[in-house]
C-alpha cells in the first residue's frame, strides 16, 4: 500500500526537479511484490520472490521534455539522478506541445488506491506453504489420465500472487493512487500420441481476489485441450465462416485499438485515419471502455498522465466514436484530448436479444452451423498503415454446430476493416479476468490458407 512516506518522497522529488530550474514535473512510483511457485510434473520446480520499486520522472523545462526512471530510491542517489535528468532534458529540442494536462482533466477521486475495489488484504496473509499447496493442488499430473492412446509428457504449472502499487503526482498538486492485488494460476501440458506426435494445451485463471481464483480446474482443462488436438491437420484452403473463441478473440481487437491511438493516427500510420464518426464496421459492433467498473479486474481511475478515465464508447453500432489522444498527441493533431489508451475494453453481445442471440460458444456454433472454430493464434501480424493481416491459427472444423476434427497449420489472411465488416455475431461469454472482455465472435467469408 502507498504510504505517507511514499507521497513525501515524490513531493521531495518534484521539489528537487523544480529547484533545478524545471517548469513542471510529474513523478510516478511503481512498486510490486510477487511470490511465485512453479511446478514441473507434479513437484515444486521453482520458488521466486520479487520485490520491485521504481521511480519515473517526467521533466518539463524551458519548453523541453525528458522522461527518466531509476530503481535507486535513496535520496542521495536520487538527487544525483535528478540533477542529470534535468540537464539531459535541457538538451532536447524545444516543443511547445509538451506540457502537463489541464487541471480540470485530472483525476481527483483516486486518493487511497482502493477506489477501484481491486485490493484484497488476504494477499498479505498467504503463507509460503499455502502457495505450494495452491500450485500442487491445481496440477493434473498423477490425478487425471490422458485420453486413450495418449501419454502425458510434461506438465508445467505456475501459481503466483502479487500486489502492485502505483502513485502519480505532479507539480500542480495531482495525487493519484492505485493498488491492485492479483492471484494467478497457469498450466501447460504436453502429451504425445502412440506415434510420438506431440500436442500441448494451456489453461489459466486470474482474479484480484484470493477467493476468486479458480485454479483447481486448470490442470484438467489444459489436459483435455492437449488431447483434443490429436491428429490435427490442415484443411483445404478456402473461404469459411470463422468463429473465434473468447479466450483468444482479443487478438483481433488489438489492431483496432492501435489504429485508434494518436501515436498511429498522427503519423499517418493508421488504417483508421479519418474514421472518427464514420460507419466503418458492421452495425452490430459495439466496443466500450470500462475503466470505472469498480471491482472489474484491470479497472483504473486514471491514466499515466493522471487524467481521469471515463466509461466511453469506442465503436458504437459500427461507428468510430473515440480516438485515444493524450495531451501531447491532441496538441499535435489540433484536437481535444481524450484519454491516452483503452483500459478495459468490452465487446457487447450481438444480437442482444431475439432468436438469433447466442449466449455462449456452443450456441454460436449451432447458429453458424459450419465453419472453423479458432481456439488459438500462432504468430502473424497486422500492417498498421493498411490493416492487412495474416495470422497462423489452430482450432476445429465444425459442422451442424458440432466440433468435427482439430485443424492446425492454417492461416487466415485479409484486411481488418473488411474482417470487421463481415462480423455478424458475438456471444456473451467474455471471461472477466481477461485484459479485454471479448466474447466468442463470428465472421463470414474469411480466407483460410491450408493444404
Amino acid at each position: 500500500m502507498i504510504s505517507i512516506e511514499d507521497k513525501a518522497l515524490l513531493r521531495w522529488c518534484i521539489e528537487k526537479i523544480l529547484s533545478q530550474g524545471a517548469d513542471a514535473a510529474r513523478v510516478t512510483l511503481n512498486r510490486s511484490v510477487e511470490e511465485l511457485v512453479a511446478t514441473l510434473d507434479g513437484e515444486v520446480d521453482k520458488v521466486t520472490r520479487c520485490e520491485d520499486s521504481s521511480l519515473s520522472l517526467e521533466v518539463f523545462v524551458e519548453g523541453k521534455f525528458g522522461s527518466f526512471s531509476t530503481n535507486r530510491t535513496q535520496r542521495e542517489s536520487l538527487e544525483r539522478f535528478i540533477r542529470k535528468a534535468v540537464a539531459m532534458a535541457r538538451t532536447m529540442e524545444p516543443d511547445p506541445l509538451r506540457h502537463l494536462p489541464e487541471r480540470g482533466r485530472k483525476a481527483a477521486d483516486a486518493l487511497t488506491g482502493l477506489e477501484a475495489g481491486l485490493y484484497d488484504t488476504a494477499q498479505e496473509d498467504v503463507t509460503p506453504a499455502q502457495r505450494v499447496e495452491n500450485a500442487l493442488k491445481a496440477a493434473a499430473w498423477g490425478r487425471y489420465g490422458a485420453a486413450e492412446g495418449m501419454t502425458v509428457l510434461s506438465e508445467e504449472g505456475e501459481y503466483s500472487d502479487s500486489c502492485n502499487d502505483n502513485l502519480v503526482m505532479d507539480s500542480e498538486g495531482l495525487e493519484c493512487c492505485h493498488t491492485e492485488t492479483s492471484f494467478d494460476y497457469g498450466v501447460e501440458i504436453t502429451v504425445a500420441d502412440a506415434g510420438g506426435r506431440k500436442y500441448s494445451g494451456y489453461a489459466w485463471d486470474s482474479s484480484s481476489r484470493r477467493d476468486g481464483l479458480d485454479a483447481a480446474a486448470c490442470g484438467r482443462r489444459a489436459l483435455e485441450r492437449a488431447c483434443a488436438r490429436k491428429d490435427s491437420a490442415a484443411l483445404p484452403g478456402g473461404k469459411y465462416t470463422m468463429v473465434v473463441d473468447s479466450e483468444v478473440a482479443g487478438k483481433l481487437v488489438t489492431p483496432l485499438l492501435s489504429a485508434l491511438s494518436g501515436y498511429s493516427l498522427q503519423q499517418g500510420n493508421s488504417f483508421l485515419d479519418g474514421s472518427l464518426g464514420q460507419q466503418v464496421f458492421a452495425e452490430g459492433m459495439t466496443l466500450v471502455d470500462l475503466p470505472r467498473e469498480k471491482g472489474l479486474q484491470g479497472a483504473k481511475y486514471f491514466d499515466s498522465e493522471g487524467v481521469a478515465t471515463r466509461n466511453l464508447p469506442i465503436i458504437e453500432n459500427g461507428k468510430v466514436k473515440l480516438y485515444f489522444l493524450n495531451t501531447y498527441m491532441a496538441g499535435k493533431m489540433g484536437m481535444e484530448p481524450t484519454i491516452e489508451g483503452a483500459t478495459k475494453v468490452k465487446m457487447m453481445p450481438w444480437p442482444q436479444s431475439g432468436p438469433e442471440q447466442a449466449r455462449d460458444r456452443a450456441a454460436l456454433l449451432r447458429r453458424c452451423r459450419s465453419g472453423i472454430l479458432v481456439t488459438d493464434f500462432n504468430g502473424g501480424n497486422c500492417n498498421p498503415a493498411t490493416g492487412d493481416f495474416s495470422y497462423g491459427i489452430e482450432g476445429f472444423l465444425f459442422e451442424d454446430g458440432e466440433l468435427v476434427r482439430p485443424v492446425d497449420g492454417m492461416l487466415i489472411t485479409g484486411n481488418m476493416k473488411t474482417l470487421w465488416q463481415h462480423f455478424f455475431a458475438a456471444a456473451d461469454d467474455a471471461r472477466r479476468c481477461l485484459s479485454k472482455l471479448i466474447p466468442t465472435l463470428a465472421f463470414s467469408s474469411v480466407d483460410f490458407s491450408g493444404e
Partner: protein
Amino acid sequence: MSNNTFGIRMEDLQALVAEGLSGGGDWCDLFFEYSAYTSLMLRDGIVSSGGSHEDYGCGIRVLKGEKTGYAYAESTDMKALRKAARAAAGIAGGGSGAACGTPHRVECPNRLYPAGTDWREFESAAAIPWLQRIESEIRRRESRTLKVIASFSCDMSEVLMFNSLGELTEDLRPMGSLAVTAIFSNGKKVINNNASRSYRAGAEMLGDAVVQDLADEVVRGIDEAFEARRPKGGKMSVVMGAGASGILLHEAMGHAFEADFNRKGQSVFSGRMGQKICRSGINIVDDACLPFNRGACNFDDEGVPGQKTYMVTDGVLTSFLHDRISAKYYGVAPTGNGRRESFRYNPIPRMRATYMENGSDGSVEDLIASVRKGIFVDRFSNGQVKIGEGDFTFFVKSGRLIEDGRLTAPVSDINIIGNGPKALADIRAVASDLKIDESQWTCGKEQSAPVSCGIPSVLVENLTVGGGQ
C-alpha cells in the same frame, strides 16, 4: 574485483553464497548488475523526447538438483541481500548444503566488444544530429516520404557474477542501437517500412556508414511495396533471402534445440540427439563469439565463457543449447547459453547469434531459377513457435512471386507457417552467400534477450503461405 560499482567485498560474496546454501542447496550463484540506458526519439523532424533509465540490483539463485530458488534485491546492502539469499535458499528444504569453493577469478577468453567510446561518457545530445541526418537522407532519397520516426538508444551494463565454485567473473556489456520507421504515400496508398542496426559496441558505432545503410534499407523496394499484393495462399516453395531469413532458424529450430524444453520432454526434438534431421552438408550454429554482434557474450549470465555451439553438424543433431541445469542433467559441459533479461530473472537456455553456415548449391539466382512456382522473401517483422508441436510462423514484410524460375509480382504482409522438423527436412538447397543480419532482434521467450540471426539463401519446400483464395 576490478570495480567497486556494487560496493561489495569478496568476503560478502562468500557469506551470501553460504547463506544461500544453508538450506541444503547444492549450487548458489549471485548476479550483480548495474545497467544505464539512454534513449532519444526524432518525430516530426525534432528530437523532443528522450530520457535515461537505470537499474541496479542483485539476483541470487539456489539450485537443488534441477529445482530453483530465486530472489533478488534492488540494493547491494547486505541486509537486503541476505534476505534474498534466505528466500532463495528455501527451495532446498533442509539438509546440509554444498560448501563454497576457493574464490578465484575467471579470465575472459574473448574480449568480443571492447567499447571504443564508453556510453557512460557519452553526451546523449551528440546523437541528435545523427537522428536528424537519418531523416534528411531518407527524404533526399525518396520524395514520397510522409513521416520519419528515428530512435537511438545506448545501454551499458556492468555485471559481476560469483558462484559456489568460487568463480568470479565480470563483464562490461555495451549496446548501441538505431532504428527508423518511415511512412510513404503515393497519393493512393500509404505504406510503412522500417530498419534498424544494433551492436555490442560503444559510441564509435555512430557514423555516416550506419546512417547511409539505414536510409538505403528503409527506402529499398518502395516502388514494389506500392504495387505489392497478396499472393494466392497455399503450400509452395519458398526461397529465403540471405540475412534476416535466419528468423527461420530461430523460430523453427533454435527454440526447439533449447535444452530446457528437451529436458522436460516438451520439444519436438526431444530424444533425437545424434539423429539425422536434415540433408548432409547443413551446419546450424549458435554463436556467442561474433565480435560486436548483438548476440555476442564474453560470458553468459551464469559466468560460462561465450562459445560457438554446433547444433546441427552435416545434417545431424549434435548439441542442444544448455544452461548449467540442463548441462548437468545431460552430463555435458554448459554451452554458455544461460542468459537472463536482468538480475530480476533466473537464467534459462537462450539463443545468441543463430545462423546456418554456407552451403554449396550456388547463388540465390540459382535457387530462384530452380523454382517453378513459389515466393522469394527477404524482409520480416516477427515470428513465433509452438515448442511441442514444432509449428512455427514468421511474418513477411516483403518479397516477390517466383514464376517459372523468375521473380515476378511483389508481395507483402503474409504469414508463413510450417513445422520445424519437416521444414528442416524440406531444405532443398543452400547457397553460399551467408549474411548475418544486424537488426535489433529481441527474443521474447519468458524474458527479453538481444539476439541476432543469419542464413545463406535457402530453398524450402512445402511451406504454407497465407493469401487470398
